[in-house]
Structure formats: C-alpha cells, structure tokens
C-alpha cells in the first residue's frame, strides 16, 4: 500500500519535475519537487537521467538569419504576386471595371446631380461648394477603394458577367428553343428584380465597408488627416453612389435587352412599354431615381454606423432616423417608377411619389447633418477605441448568450437590421422568379410536373444541405486555425449551447431564405389562385396538402442534416481546405448511400414480386421502396459503422482541441461487450421493426386489402412501427456525432442521446410516414383533401430525403478509415476511397443489380399481346412513312416559292429578324389579310367597304397569291403542312396564315357574289374548298382540328352561297364533285383523315384496352411537342374519352374507378373537343355531308320540280351514296319539307360529359337552310 502511494506521488510530481528541470516550474511546484527529491531515491535517479540527457544531448545552435533576408523576401514576394493568377485576375477585373467606368460619361457629374438636388432642396447650400468638390488623390477615397477591395466588393465587370451568364445564357437558351415568350418574361422578371435588389445589396456593402473601417481603426486615421467632417461624409456618400452607377450599367443592359421583348408580353396592361424606345428611356430615369435613393441611403448608413457604439444597440433616435430614411426612400423608387410609367398623367401614384420625394430630401439632409455631427463629435475617437474590443451584439436577440452565434451573425451582416432588410429584398425577387418558375412547371403535363416539382424541392434541399455543411465545416475549421476555438471551449459554454450555436449559424440564414421564398411563393399563390388551382388554364391541381407539408419538411430537414455533416467533417479536418475536400467526399458518399438504399429496396422488392408472382398496387410499391427497406438497410449499416466512427471522432477531438490526454471522453462502461450490446440491440430492434412494417404492408395485397380499405389500426401500426424503427436508427446515427462534438464542452452523454433520439423520432415520423399520416387524417375526416393523393414522386423524394439525412450523418463523419494524423489535403482518389469506398462499392453493386433486375422486369412487363403490338407498329410505321413522304416534298417542288408571301410572316416571327423593304410590303399586305381574319363575313365586307385603302391592299395581295395558288393546286403532291409552333400569345402562325388565305378567298367570293358574278364566286368557292383540302396537320389531334376548322370555313361559305343562289345543274354537279373529291362517305371521310385521326382512333382503342401508358410513351418518342400542347392532348384522351374515370390515374392511394368508355365512334368523341378549340370545327363533318345533301336536294328539285318528301327519295348521281347519314349522331339527318323549302337538321346528341363538366353540351346543333 505504501509502495503504491509512493509511486503515485512520483507519478503525480513527474510533470512538475520535468518542468523544474527546464526551469519552467512555478515556485510552489519547485518547493514540492525539491522536498520530494530529498526523500525519494527513485526520483533522484530519474532526475539524474534527465539531466544527463539534457547535458549529453547534442544541442544544435540556431544560425543567424541570412543577411538581407527581409529585402530579398520582399522582392520575391512582390515578384510572385505579379505572377499569381488571383492577383492577375484581380487586375484584369480592375481593367474591365475601368472600361465599364468609361462607358459612364461622367460618373462624378451624375453623382453630383442628385446630391445637388438633395442639398439644394434642403436648404443647405452653404456647404455644397466644399462638400462636393472632388479632389484628386483624396486620402479617404483611396482608403475606401482599398477597403472595398479588401471587403470583397465586386468590380462592375463581375456584375456584368454575372448578369450575362446567370440571366443572359438561360434567356438565350430559351430563345433558341423558340420560346420567345418565356425568354422575354425571364429577362424582364430578372431585370426588374435586379433593379430593386442590387441597390439594396450595395447599400449593405456600403455599411459593411464602413464597419470594417471602424473595426480596423481606419476611421481614426481619417480623422487624424485633418479633413473636415462634412467632406468625409460626402466622400463616403459619393463613393456609394459611384459604386451604384457601376452596378447600374449592367443591370440597365439586362433591362434593355428584356424590355423590347417585354412590350410584346405586357403591352396590354403596361402602356409605356408598348414602345420599346420609351421603355428603354426608363433605364436612365431609374438610374437617376435610385441615385437619389442611394445617396440618401449612404448618409443613413453613416449615421447608423457612427452612432452604433461598438456594436451596441443604437439609440432610439438613430433607429427612428434610420426607419424614417428607409421607408420613404423605398417608396420613392416605387412611386417614381409609377410617375415614369403613368402615361395617363399625374395620378395618385405620382402624387404619392412627389410627396415622398420631398420628405426624402428632408430626411437625406437630416441624415447628412447627423453624420457630420457624429463625425466631428469630440467623443468619436474615444468611442471607436472602445468599440475595437469585441462585444456582444444585442440585436441578435435570444441568441445573445451564445458567443458563436453572436459573432457569426455579426460577421454575416455588418449591421443586422440592414442586413436582414437587404437579405429580404435580395431574396425576395429571386423568390418571385422562382414562383414564376413553379408556374411554368404548372404548364407541364401532370406527371412530369409532379416529378419536376419534387425534383425542384430535392434540388433546393440538396443545395441547402451542401451549403449548410460547407458553411459549418469551414467556419469551425477557421476557428480552429485561428486558435479561437479553445477560448470558446473554455468560456463555459454548455454543450447544447455550443452545438446548437453552430447549427444556428449554419441553418439560420438558410432558413431565413427558405422562409422568405416560401412566403413569397405563398403570396404569389394567394394573389393568383389559378397558379395553384390551375383551373383557369384547365390545369388540374397538383399541390395538395400532403405535398405542401412534405415540401416544407424536406426543406427544413436538409439544412439541419447539412449542418450536422459539416460539424462532423470539421471535427476531423485539420484545416479549411481539408474540410472542403471532406465535404465533397461527404456529398458523394451521401449520394452513393442513397443509391444503395434505393437500389437495394427496389431490387429486393422486384425479386419478391417475381418470386411470389404478386401484383402490387402502386401504393405498396411506393411504401416499400420509399421508406421501409431503406430505413432498415440504412439502420443496420449505419449502426454498425457508427461505433467506429464515434471512437475515431473522439480521438481526433481529443488530440486536436484539447491538445493533451485528458480522462477518456467516454466512460469505461461504454466499452467492450456492453458497447457491442448497445450497438447490436437497437440495430436488431430497428431491423425487427422495419421487417414488421414491411410484412404489414406486404400483407395488404395478400389479404386482399387495398390501401384505402385498410383499417386505421393497420395504418397506425405501420406508421408507429416505422417511426420507432427510425427513431432507434436515428438515435444511433446521430448519437456519436453529438457525443463527439459535445464532449469537449461537457460530459452529459444522456442529454445528447436524448436530443438525438428525439431528432431521430421526429425525423422518422416525418420522413417516412407523413404521407401515410396525412392520408389517415383525410380518412378520419380531420383534414379535407384538397387535391389528389400522395403520389409516387413524393415518396421518391422522401426516400431521397431520408437517404440524405441518414447518409449525410454517416458520410459526414466519414470515419470508416481515418488515419490518426491527417492534416494534409488528400488527393481526390484518396479522399473518395477514405470517405466513400464502402458505400461506393456497395452502391455500384446494387446499382448493377438494380439495373439488371429492372431490365428484366421491363422486359417482362413489355409482353403485351402480340396482336396489339403488331397493330400499333403498323400504325406507327404508316404514320412515320407519311411523315417522311411529306417532308420529302421540298418547298420548291411543293409550290411554296410562289406562295412565299403567305408564309413570310411565319418565317419572320420565327427568326425575329429585321425586315427588308420588300418583306415589309408583303407584311403590310398580309396585315390586311390578318385584319379580315376574324369576324362575320358580312361585317368584314362592310368594314372593307368603309376602308377602301385596306380593301385595295388586301385585294392586291390576294390577286398576287391567286395565280400561284391555282398553279400549285394542279400538282397532286401539293400539301401545306400546318406545323405546330408557338407564336405570340400562343397562336400557331401556320394556322393563322392558312386561315387568312381561306378567309380571304371566302370574302372575295362573297364580294363577287354581291357584284353579281356568280360564276366567278363559285370558282373561288371551289378553289377554297380544294385549298382547304390540301391542308395537312403535322402532329396529333390539335392540328387536325385546325385543318378541319379551315375546311369548315370554306364549306360554310359555299353552303351559304348555295343557300342564297339558285344554281344550275352543272354548277351543282361541280360542287358535288369537289365535295366528293376529298370524301365520299362518312367512313371514307374518316379514312381520308390525316394520320392524326387514324392514330387517335387507335389511341382510343388503346385506352379501352388499358394501354394508355404505353401509347403515351410511343407518342413521346414520336412527337416533339411543347409541354402545354402535350398537356392538352392528354386531357383529350384521359378526360374527354374517359369521363367516368377519376382523375388520379397514377395516384398512389387514390381510388381508381375505371368505367367502360361510351361506345361511340371516334369522330363523335372528338367533336365536342373540337368545339372547345374552334366552334366552326364542331360542325365540320355535318357541314360537309349537309353540303352534299343540299346539292342533291337541289338537283332533285331541278329534275322533279320539288323537294322530296324524305331523304330516301333523293336521286344520287354518284356511286356509294345511300342515305345521308349524320356522322355526329350516327343516325339520319332530320329532314322536313316545308312550304317554302326544306329544313335539314343535324342533331348532336352527346351521351357523355365533356371534360369541362359545367358546360352545357347535350343540346343539339341545328343547321337548316330554308327556301
């Protein structure tokens, strides 16, 4: 016992002995050591050994510093700086900036203008002269320039190229894709956004520069130069204004590019923008207005900075001044724009604008006075001296107690209120743009829209994850490098303070951004309900309650996961560079782990399906692949790896942050078998629970339960079981991280474990089972279901999010194979190996497996009935062949060249080129044509009479076209393809042009008829009929509708002609012949329809056979169509064709009721849709046949002297003519002989609901010429 004590004493005193030998022990220690040495021989031996070591060790004298080292090094450093790429890049940027500066004719003059106006109006002319005199080599300006560069302010070239690349390139791409509307809208949105955002941003930068000057004590130096305070103040304001002008130029360029195009878009409600020139004039006006705003803002910034004493709360007076400065300043810009834009004269907007302008001037003067007073205040120096000591920023509110947060937030934005305001505005406009993008998403077809939405959510989440992780790790590594971590640790922070502080630091800005974005999207959605409901555009609603929750939670969870990863990464990184590298590795690794989980689950599920021969509901697939299996797999994987990860993280933290060997971080009870039990127990539990849930879900189809039919108990059980499983897994995933990161500031393992467990439980419930829970709420009637159900895409995304959260923690720890001493940045390959070798290998394996099995499954499911396949292939082959044949006929051969004027306008609109004089003439002529495009023929005629000039031009153009048209029609191969392309306002240029010609011919015929030239009129009518027969739509249904609507115009006009005039027998026979040329019977008519109708019929059959998805795929492969068109096409088939079918075709949990589609002919199914697209097309068929019937009736009258009693009596001069069948009703035309003539009626009796269910579509359409 005694021996032990003595040894223990020696042990205890050894460190003191060591220090004593080196003469570094304290006085008490020295006394103690000496006393001990006298009584302990062993220690004397040790002392002697150590002394002999010191004596005998070869000491190395340190040589002197080489002479001239300093001068040599300076020269070398300067030479190397010349060569360094970043220095060169800065210089290049500066040169570009200078070039841009020169583009502004007189920046100083421009800057002076608003200042002069400001001060002159405020009545402080006494100081104008001195205050605005710019001097060469002003020390303040020089200092400002340096400071700006140091603080990271970007040169104008940066903004220019930023605007160019960020906004110009996407806009150019959109334009190249022939989406001019989108391109213009994009540019305008962005331009307007920048107009508001950039001044704010620069204002914030101004504040940052000022603060950094104060911190660096540069303000003292400025004061020491003996400059007058007002001069300093004005120089600062001028500086801000100048930087604004530099920024304003690129912004103006963006706006200039967007504005002329915007005039197309906004012409209806934004009057001044109709004229591009006037719109362009807005840019300088804006610059001027913002110049005033900015100079006032700069004074405000100075006042704020000078009066906020060292980061303390500014006095209420200062705050009041600041507020008073900002509100009117912002209003000025808005109302000033209102003044500039208001073409109607001074209205309310302009009155408000000038009111605010006046108040702004006054406030600007006040700000300047305050700044000057602050600058010249006798206590100023003293205050700045005091402010150099780090203090807490009370503006951050509840975070005040955590120095990390305080410092980070302070660093984040130079002044919190201004920073937040700036952030608000900088983020607000992009958010609106994002909302716009979401709206664009709404135009996509339903499936791709859902997917796109969730891809967007996942993308934003991924970005948030990356940003949070890199931010956390970089900041922590920086602290570590700066040796400020130790004081932080020693400052008595509790562990939760420390960890939560870092998470707040990483997540708070992101959450702010996300909240702003969400708020703005919500605002936009509320302002334009149709964006979400989509009803206005016939777009079904996609965002339902569950989706909204899920999106929100996904966005909330991702930054958190990223912050955890970042903390873990920095814990094992030696420096920032390495932390960055590890983040990259973590990103890769997390992706890989997700692929592993997803691949594994899908593979297993597929195998199960094949082995058991089961048929799963989509919802079961979703539930299984999306949640259960990934959870189980990841749980096991992560639980196994977390033990090693924790140990290594602890070791690293211990050696790096504490620098010594303190008592072990984890108590011995955590070691050995007990630890293994603790790891394996929950892992087993997790897997059992996951398996249980898996079985429950598996049992659903086996027990013949659908998801909707399952009892709430089953739902509840599966949800709770899954949540528990994930809770345990999450606890084990996150616990090591928490322990590792928190252990250096405290010892409460239980608390961190509880935190991690809670997080895991919440994450488990939210991530896996929220879709199900939402559904449950709906089932119980607690929540009203607004939209569709939870879809495949959502749960995929949840698989994604789950994978990210879990994998992020795992991969962020990145500790599978960490060497003990690692500070050098590794090669990419090494890093990948180190961080992600296991997941990478496994994921590749599973990816291959997944692909193989997926391919097999795809092969299995593609075994559709051979007959259908052959039929479908034949149809496709025929369609493709026709397409090729049509394309093979060149423009020359087709007779297009003589018809060039007809298509001129289309080409112009597509290419957006300038007009030559000849083209302009042609265009003028065709503008006349377009003008007669709409309206009743009688009205057009009257209008033409009222406007002889226009009538002349129209006639000239038509005369020019007619010979060419006649010649072209002699060629059998002459076919005019109506191609789909989006013109302005969603029009189809081809269609407009063709309609122009058809209408023109009909109008001319009507004119001839009125002049009494019946033969000429009939000639033109027949020409029109033949012309309209040659129109051929490219693409499915919609172009068929278009071409038939044109035929309808021609037929309607000739019908009117026959109705109004008594024709001779040869004339009637000619009409009949022209009619029969194209179509002899209803069935023949159908046969002769273009590919579209033929194809549509097959599609219809396909739908009835339940093969719509396959057909969709075939379509997509064959046709390249814009999304809006595609969406419309889908509606025709899924809704007009299947009126009884509920809209959720692919919803995971929706009840799908398939009704047998009404057994009507394809034509009768299509007709109601025709009417929606074009009223005239609705009666195309019946008109066609009615024309024939009328001609025959007339012939009958000519031969017998009276109309027949029934249609059966009609003599037919042509073969194949039986009873006049009405293709719409499928029955006879209703015919009645009257006293004055006859009445022919086509009754459209539709037995199904069309897609707009409110429409009144069951009434018949009547057509009756009477004599």
């Amino acid at each position: 016992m005694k021996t032990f004590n003595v040894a223990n004493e020696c042990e205890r005193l050894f460190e003191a002995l060591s220090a004593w030998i080196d003469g570094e022990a304290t006085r008490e220690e020295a006394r103690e050591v000496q006393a001990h040495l006298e009584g302990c021989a062993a220690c004397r031996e040790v002392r002697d050994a150590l002394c002999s070591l010191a004596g005998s060790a070869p000491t190395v004298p340190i040589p002197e510093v080489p002479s001239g080292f300093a001068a040599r090094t300076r020269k070398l450093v300067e030479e190397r700086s010349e060569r360094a790429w970043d220095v060169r890049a800065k210089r290049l940027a500066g040169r570009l900036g200078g070039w841009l500066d020169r583009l502004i004719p007189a920046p100083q003059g421009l800057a002076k203008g608003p200042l002069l106006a400001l001060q002159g109006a405020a009545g402080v002319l006494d100081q104008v002269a001195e205050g605005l005199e710019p001097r060469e080599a002003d020390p303040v300006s020089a200092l400002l320039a340096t400071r700006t560069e140091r603080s990271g302010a970007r040169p104008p070239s940066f903004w220019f190229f930023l605007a160019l690349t960020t906004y110009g390139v996407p806009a150019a791409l959109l334009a190249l894709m022939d989406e001019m509307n989108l391109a213009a809208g994009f540019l305008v949105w962005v331009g307007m956004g920048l107009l508001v955002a950039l001044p704010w941003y620069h204002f914030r930068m101004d504040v940052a520069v000022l603060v950094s000057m104060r911190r660096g004590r540069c303000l003292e130096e400025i004061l020491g130069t003996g400059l007058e305070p007002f001069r300093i103040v004005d120089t600062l304001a001028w500086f801000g204004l100048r930087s604004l002008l530099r920024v304003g130029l690129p912004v103006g360029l963006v706006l200039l590019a967007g504005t002329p195009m915007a005039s197309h878009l906004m012409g209806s409600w934004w009057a001044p923008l109709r004229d591009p020139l006037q719109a362009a004039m807005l840019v300088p006006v804006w610059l001027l207005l913002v110049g005033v705003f900015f100079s006032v803002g700069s004074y405000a910034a100075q006042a704020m900075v000078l009066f906020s004493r060292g980061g303390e709360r500014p006095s209420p007076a200062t705050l009041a001044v600041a507020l008073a400065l900002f509100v009117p300043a912002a209003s000025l810009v808005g109302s000033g724009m209102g003044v500039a834009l208001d073409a109607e004269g001074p209205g309310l907007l302009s009155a408000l604008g000038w009111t605010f302008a006046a108040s702004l001037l006054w406030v600007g003067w006040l700000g300047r006075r305050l700044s000057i007073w602050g600058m010249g205040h006798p206590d100023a120096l003293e205050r700045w001296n005091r402010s150099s000591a780090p203090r807490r920023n009370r503006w951050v509110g509840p975070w005040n107690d955590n120095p990390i947060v305080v410092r980070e937030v302070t660093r984040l934005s130079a002044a919190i209120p201004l920073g937040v305001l700036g952030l608000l505005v900088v983020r607000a406009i992009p958010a609106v743009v994002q909302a716009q993008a979401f709206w664009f998403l709404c135009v996509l077809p339903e499936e791709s829209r859902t997917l796109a939405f969730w891809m967007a959510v996942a993308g934003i989440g991924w970005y948030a994850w990356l940003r949070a992780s890199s931010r956390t790790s970089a900041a922590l590594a920086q602290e570590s490098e700066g040796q400020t971590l130790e004081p932080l640790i020693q400052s008595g922070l509790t562990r939760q303070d420390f960890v939560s502080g870092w998470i707040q630091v990483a997540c708070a800005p992101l959450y702010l951004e996300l909240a702003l974005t969400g708020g703005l999207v919500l605002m936009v959605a509320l302002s334009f309900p149709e964006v979400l409901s989509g009803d206005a555009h016939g777009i079904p609603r996609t965002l339902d309650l569950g989706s909204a929750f899920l999106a929100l939670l996904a966005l909330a969870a991702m930054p958190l996961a990223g912050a955890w990863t970042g903390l873990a990464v920095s814990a094992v990184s030696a420096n920032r560079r390495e932390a960055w590298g590890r983040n990259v590795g973590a990103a890769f690794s997390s992706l890989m782990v997700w692929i592993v989980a997803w691949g594994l689950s899908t593979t297993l599920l597929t195998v199960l399906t094949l082995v058991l021969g089961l048929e799963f509901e989509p919802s079961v697939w979703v539930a299984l692949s999306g949640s259960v299996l990934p959870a189980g797999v990841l749980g096991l994987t992560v639980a196994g790896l977390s033990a090693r990860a924790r140990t290594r993280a602890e070791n690293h933290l211990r050696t790096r942050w504490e620098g010594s060997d303190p008592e072990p971080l984890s108590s011995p009870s955590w070691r050995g078998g007990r630890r293994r039990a603790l790891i394996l127990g929950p892992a087993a539990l997790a897997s059992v629970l996951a398996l249980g849930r898996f079985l429950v879900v598996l049992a659903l189809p086996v027990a013949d339960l659908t998801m909707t039919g399952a009892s709430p108990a089953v739902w509840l059980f599966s949800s709770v079981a899954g949540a528990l499983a994930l809770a345990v897994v999450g606890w084990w995933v996150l616990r090591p991280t928490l322990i590792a990161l928190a252990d250096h500031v405290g010892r409460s393992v239980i608390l961190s474990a509880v935190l991690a467990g809670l997080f895991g439980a919440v994450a488990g419930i939210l991530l896996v089972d929220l879709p199900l829970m939402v559904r449950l709420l709906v089932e119980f009637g607690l929540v009203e279901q607004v939209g569709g159900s939870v879809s495949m895409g959502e749960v995929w995304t949840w698989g994604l999010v789950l994978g990210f959260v879990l994998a992020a923690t795992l991969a962020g720890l990145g500790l599978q194979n960490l060497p003990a001493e690692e500070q050098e940045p590794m090669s990419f390959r090494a890093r990948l190996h180190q961080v992600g070798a296991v997941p990478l290998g496994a994921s590749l394996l599973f990816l291959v497996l997944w692909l193989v099995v997926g391919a097999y499954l795809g092969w299995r499911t593609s075994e559709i009935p051979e007959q259908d396949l052959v039929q479908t292939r034949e149809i496709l082959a025929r369609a493709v062949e026709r397409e090729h044949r049509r394309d093979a006929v060149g423009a020359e051969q087709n007779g297009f060249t003589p018809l060039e004027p007809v298509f001129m306008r289309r080409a112009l609109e597509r290419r957006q080129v300038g007009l030559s004089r000849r083209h302009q003439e042609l265009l003028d002529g065709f503008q006349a044509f377009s003008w007669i495009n709409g309206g009743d023929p009688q009205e057009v005629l009257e209008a033409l009479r009222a406007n002889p000039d226009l009538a002349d031009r129209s006639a000239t153009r038509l005369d020019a076209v007619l010979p060419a048209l006649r010649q072209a029609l002699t060629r059998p191969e002459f076919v005019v393809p109506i191609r789909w392309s989006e013109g302005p306002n969603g029009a189809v240029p081809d269609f407009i042009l063709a309609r122009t010609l058809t209408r023109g011919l009909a109008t001319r015929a009507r004119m001839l008829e009125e002049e009494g030239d019946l033969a000429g009129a009939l000639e033109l009518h027949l020409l029109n009929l033949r012309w309209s027969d040659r129109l051929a739509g490219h693409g499915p249904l919609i172009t068929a509708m278009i071409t038939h609507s044109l035929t309808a115009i021609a037929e309607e006009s000739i019908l009117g002609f026959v109705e109004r005039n008594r024709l001779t027998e040869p004339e009637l026979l000619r009409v009949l012949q022209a009619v029969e040329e194209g179509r002899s019977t209803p069935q023949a008519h159908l046969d002769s329809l273009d590919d579209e109708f033929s194809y549509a019929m097959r599609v219809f059959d396909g739908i009835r056979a339940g093969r719509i998805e396959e057909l969709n795929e075939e379509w997509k492969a064959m046709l390249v169509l814009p999304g809006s068109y595609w969406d419309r096409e889908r509606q025709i088939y899924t809704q007009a064709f299947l009126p009884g079918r509920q809209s959720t075709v692919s919803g995971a949990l929706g009840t799908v009721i398939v009704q047998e589609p009404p057994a009507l002919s394809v034509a009768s199914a299509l007709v109601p849709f025709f009417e929606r697209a074009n009223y005239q097309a609705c009666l195309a068929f019946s008109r066609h046949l009615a024309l024939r019937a009328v001609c025959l009736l007339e012939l009958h009258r000519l031969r017998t002297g009276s109309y027949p009693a029934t249609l059966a009596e009609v003599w037919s001069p042509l073969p194949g003519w039986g009873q006049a069948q009405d293709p719409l009703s499928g029955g006879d035309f209703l015919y009645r002989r009257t006293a004055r003539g006859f009445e022919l009626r086509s009754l459209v009796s539709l037995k199904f609901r069309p897609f707009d269910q409110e429409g009144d579509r069951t009434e018949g359409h009547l057509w009756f010429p009477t004599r």
Partner: protein
Amino acid sequence: MIQEKSTTLLSASDQAEVSPRRELLARLVRRMQDGDGQALECFIQETQQVAWRLAFSLLRDRHRAEDCLQDVYFSVYRSVHQLRDPYAAQTWLLRIVTHRCRRLLRSRPAASLEELAESGVEPAAPDPTEKTRERLGMEQALARLGPQDREVLTLREMMQLSYEEIAQGLQIPLGTVRSRLAKARQRFVQALTGKGREGSR
C-alpha cells in the same frame, strides 16, 4: 488549471495590455492590408528572427528554412487582409510557419544530426569520444518514440526553445507543452533503460 489554460489561450488582442511590439506589428499589418510593400519589408524584419528560429528548429536545414520562410511571407502578404485581429499577427505568422514546415517534413523528413553536421552546422556535443556509446543509445531511444514525443523533445533538448516558443510553434497550449514534454521524457527514459520508471520503483 483550467483558469490558467484559458488565460494562456486568450488571443493577443483580448489581453488588457498591448505590448509596443504587438502594437507595431498591428500597425504594419494594417498598412500591409492597404497594399504597402514597404510595410511588408518592415514586418519581415520585425518577425524574421522568431520565425527563422522556429523554421530552422523544425526543418534543421538552412536552405529549406529560407525557402520555407519565403513561402510563408508570400502567403502572409496574399492573405493578410483575411486577418481579422492585427494584434494576433505574430501568432498567426508562427502558425503558418508550423503548417508549412510540417508539410515540408511530410515530403522529406528533417535532417538527422549527421546530415546536419555535413550541412555545416556543427552539433555541439560535449565530448564525442567519451559519450559515443551513450549518444548512440539516445539516438536509438529517440527513434523509438512517437513523432509527437520526438518533436517536442527535439525542440526542447536540442533546439533549447522555451516552453512558450514550443507552444507557439506546435500550436498547443502552454500546459500541454508541459504535460507532453513530461510524457515524452517518461517514455524516453523507458526506452533508454528498457524498463523505465517501473524499474526505479
């Protein structure tokens, strides 16, 4: 203990008194931040002695030390504007020196004493003939220690650096220098005697 550690670790600017030398360095840093080349030269002159001592101690090679320091000052010049606290300039500089030296040592370890002799620096051993056997044993014992122990022992026993210099050079707290040195010595004695303090008990 914790109190002592925390005061040792407080960054320079937090200490109530600011020495004239620190004040001078801070001024130079601020001038360098404004791009003053002359300030750079002054800064080098002010700090080269301590930086050189550390670099040479770690690298044990005159030429490598000089190259290293030139790299270091280039880094300093290029990233000086990132330095938030000009009063921490010296600590910052020494930290960069240590990083740079460690990186260099990873590519090529420091010269042994023999190489040092060849390079022109004479190790001042007390008496080669008498102590040869003992010295060989020490070299072997030293080689048996871990890199961390060897580093701290070398800096203290051979380079005769003070505890504070070692703390700055290795970026560890003063208390850690003490404990690490003690532990290294303990292990050194164990390696030297084959049984160490257990035998002495």
